[in-house]
Each structure stands twice: as C-alpha cells, then as structure tokens.
C-alpha cells in the first residue's frame, strides 16, 4: 500500500478531482493535442505566448488521474514562466520520472512536481505523467503533428 500512497498522493487526487486551468483559453497562440493510446488519455494543451513568455495556459480533455493531475500541476508550474524556463522544467521533470527508483529527487528544481516521483515504481504510468508535458513542449516548438506517448 505504501508505494500506492506514494503514487496517489493527496495533491494528485485533488488535482484529478478539481483540475486547475481546465478548459479553453482566450487568445491562444498555440495548442497541441496529446494522445496516449495505451490508456486512452487524450488532452489538449493551450498556450498564450507573448514575447517568449507563457502568459496563459490551460488544458482540456480526459484521462487517468495521473495524466490529469500532471497536466493540472504543469499549468500551475509554467504559468508566467519564460519559454526557456518551461523547457528546462520539462527536462527536469522528464529526467526525474525516467530515473531509477533509488535516484534522489531534487525538490528545489521541481517544486510540487516532485510528487510524481512515485510513478517510477510503475514504468507503464510514466507515459501518463509526461503526456501534457510532451504536448506543451511540442506546442512551444511549433510542431504540427499531435503528440503520442505510445
């Protein structure tokens, strides 16, 4: 049960139930679709970029608790950040969830996102946790084709 509590922490359950920045966004400059065929998570990340800064961000769609909470927390984390900072956060988040279970987590870099370190016990769920992040990164880069984490 402990590894389960590690995965489904209160913050994650809370963001799953009441996702932040959920829905459409006004004056969107770029959007990206993310799809995880494995569990059918399907979401869109919307960004309003102004002079290389994320002035607005939202997401919509449906998915498992991990993908929804991760998307929700991501929107909170990148709001107001520069594109470079958001990209750095993506790298840090990605490295954390892909790292070995024994690897220590750098909470100063990751902030609240560090609670997702629990997915390392469940490799199949890493794709759920990273879906919104991949969509965000792809939106920033201006990629046209939707993101898939198969």
């Amino acid at each position, binding site marked *: *049960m402990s*590894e*389960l509590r590690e*995965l*489904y922490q209160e913050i994650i*359950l809370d963001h799953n139930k009441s996702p932040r920045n959920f829905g459409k966004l006004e004056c969107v400059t770029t959007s990206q679709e993310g799809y995880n*065929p*494995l*569990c*059918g*998570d*399907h979401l869109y990340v919307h960004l309003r970029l102004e002079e290389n800064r994320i002035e607005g961000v939202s997401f919509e769609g*449906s*998915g*498992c*608790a*991990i993908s929804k909470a991760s998307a929700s927390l991501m929107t909170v984390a990148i709001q107001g950040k520069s594109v470079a900072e958001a990209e750095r956060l993506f790298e840090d988040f990605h490295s954390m969830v892909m790292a070995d279970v024994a690897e220590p987590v750098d909470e100063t870099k990751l902030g609240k996102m560090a609670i997702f370190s629990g997915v390392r016990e*469940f490799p*199949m*769920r890493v794709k*759920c946790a990273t879906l919104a992040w991949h969509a965000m990164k792809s939106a920033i880069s201006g990629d046209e084709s939707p993101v898939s984490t198969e």
Partner: protein
Amino acid sequence: MSLSEESIVSTASFDVERVRRDFPVLQEQIRGKELVYLDNAATTQKPLKVADALQRYYTNENANIHRGVHLLSQQATSSYERARGTVGHFLNANKPEEIVFLRGATEAVNLVAHGYGRQHVGSGDEIIVSQMEHHSNIVPWQVLCEERGATLRVAPINDAGEVLLEEYEELLSERTKIVAITHASNALGTVNPVRKMVNMAHKCGAVVLIDGAQGVPHMSVDVREIGCDFYVFSGHKLFAPTGIGVLYGKKPLLNAMPPWETGGGMIQRVSFEHGTTYADVPMRFEAGTPHIAGAIGLAAAIDYINSIGPKVIADYEDKLLRYVTEQLEEVDGIKLIGTAKEKVGVVSFVMDDAHPHDIGTILDTEGIAVRAGHHCAQPLMQFYNVPATVRASLAFYNTRAEIDALVTGIRKVQEVFK
C-alpha cells in the same frame, strides 16, 4: 447415463487446486502478494506439459522437418504433422490439410484477406464485420476494401453487446463477399450465434471467417457444425507458446488461394527456365522453416485441455463467470460493459470516479493482473462512449477466492478515490 448426468459428474470431479499445480506461475508472488492472474484474454499461462514438450523437442529431438533423410528429421516431421492432426481433430476439421500453421490469428486473418479477398472482392463489393471486432479482424478488411474499391459494412450491436441479427441479415446481399465475425468478443465476452450467422451469409453466397481467438480457450469448437469457411485462432491464448497460430480453411477454398509468403518449403519445383510451381495446401502457406516447437507445444496444450475436457472447462468457467458477475453487480459505482446472455469468462467494467488505468495500477499493487485499456477494440469503446474499460478475463485455473480478491481490490480503489 444421460448427457446431463454425465456433465454433473464430470464437473464435480474437476479439482481446480490440482489443475493449478500444473501452472507453476500461479504460485508466484507479485509485489509481495500472491498472483491473481485475470488477464487470460490477453494471453494464458502455460501448463508444465507444454513447457516439457518444448524442452524435450529442443533438448532431445531438434531437427528441421520435411527434407531430412536422417531419423531425427523424420521424427520432427512426424511430430509436426501429428500436431496438425491434433489441431484438425480438436476443431473437427475434415482433413488435417485444412489446418495451416501460422504465427497467430492476426496472420491468419491477413492471409485470408490477401489470398481469398484479393481474388474475390472487387469494386462495389462488400465485406461485413461486427461492431465488437478486435482490430485484427477489422484492419485487414479495411485495407482490402480500400485496395479493391469495396465497402466495409458493420453489423450493429445492442447495449448488452449482442449482434442485432435482423440488421445483420439486412446488410447481407449478393454484394457481400466476406463476413468476418468473432466467435467470442475479447472485450465483452459475448458469444455470437455463429452457426446462424454463417447460414445467413451462405444464403447470399458470402464466405465466412470466424475469429476464434476467444472461442477455443473456452468452449468446444466444431468447425463443421458451425459451417464456417475459415476459422482462426492463436496458440498463446490456448495455453500454448506465442508465435504459433492456426488457420482452418475448407480445402477447396484453400486450394484456390495463391501463396502468401514465398520461398522454401512451399514449392513443388523451382526452375529459372520454367518458373516455379507451388506445393499443395497447407504447405503452400508455410514458407520457410515453420515454428516446429510451437506446433508441438500447441498439440501438447490441446492434449492437456482434452485431458480435462472442454465441456468440463466450459461448465466450470460458466459458474465462475456467474459468480464474478454477481459479485461486481453488488459493488456500488461499477458499471458492467457487455451483459449478453451468451458469454465466455470475460467481464469488462468502468467505475465512477476512477479511470480504468488507475484501477489497473491499484489492482496490480494487490498482485491482481487485469487489463485496462481499449482491448484493441476502439470502435467498440466508441459505441459505449468510454475511453477504456477494466477487463478481468478468466481461465479454468481461476478460483472463487481470486474473484473475492478482485472485489477486495476494487474496494481499495474506491477508498483511494473516495
């Protein structure tokens, strides 16, 4: 003794604990918990008899088949051909030559789409599948239809997950060239009235392929009684190794089909001057060295099933299915997907508040292996308007105690997501 008395006696003699000892993996611990394996529609576990047959072949009997003059090769050839006979008998085929060994059900559907479909389906023709098909019984027909300018028609289902026979009959016409229907749905458990559906199709002159991947593991199958033209299944869902599967086809139909892959083993004669003539069926469709060990393992699995008895298995699984259905119906917030009258041991469900994938992960921490996803049946998920379901699928080695563990696990999910 009447038939019903006989079945009562044989069910009573079925000892699940004894059977479980034939499957060492069932004694394994997963995350410190006893394994509860309820993912049998994905693949079944293998009994020792199958592992032993593979071991014996590779350690003591390994040789290539058909061409060798040496004794070991002759023995391997006769084991391989004996396996064909075992499968033929298992399906009640007319002749062993009607059994083609392939990689699995997927390859078998593709072979029929390629070999039969390309010859008989033309512009304006139609192929019928059902709403509940697995992708492997959809995509090869879609591709064929695109290539030939034909149309793929879909036989609709009701909310319980049963094909609407009247609508199906209305779809049938002289344009229908092929009907491809699953014997039992991998996502819902529905058993289709295949004999009736074959009869209806034959009246219009269409040939019928039955996807038996979820048929053969759960019931005794008689292809002549069903009357189908093709029947396909995968070994690994029938307690046999991966990489071996079967196409049954009526001999005249197979005979009229061109080769699939070409190369050694499938020829009669090869000449640069006079070209190549092909071997008769089934060899024509088995180019290259086939999966000899797989065929031997499949025969061992069938012998094992026969030693228990397909009818005994079906009766036991039916009781278990009724039990799991009752137990799940009692849990608040669970919705069963697929409530057909005729079902094999598959229960699909969704829950309020918890996504199937989260349910799957939480059950996994309890040592319970289920499937969470679209089960390679996305059109079916679209019909029910769900992104995915949780699926528990049974085999004859499952127990009521394991069903109880599943229900306890689901209560735990509710605790986490309350």
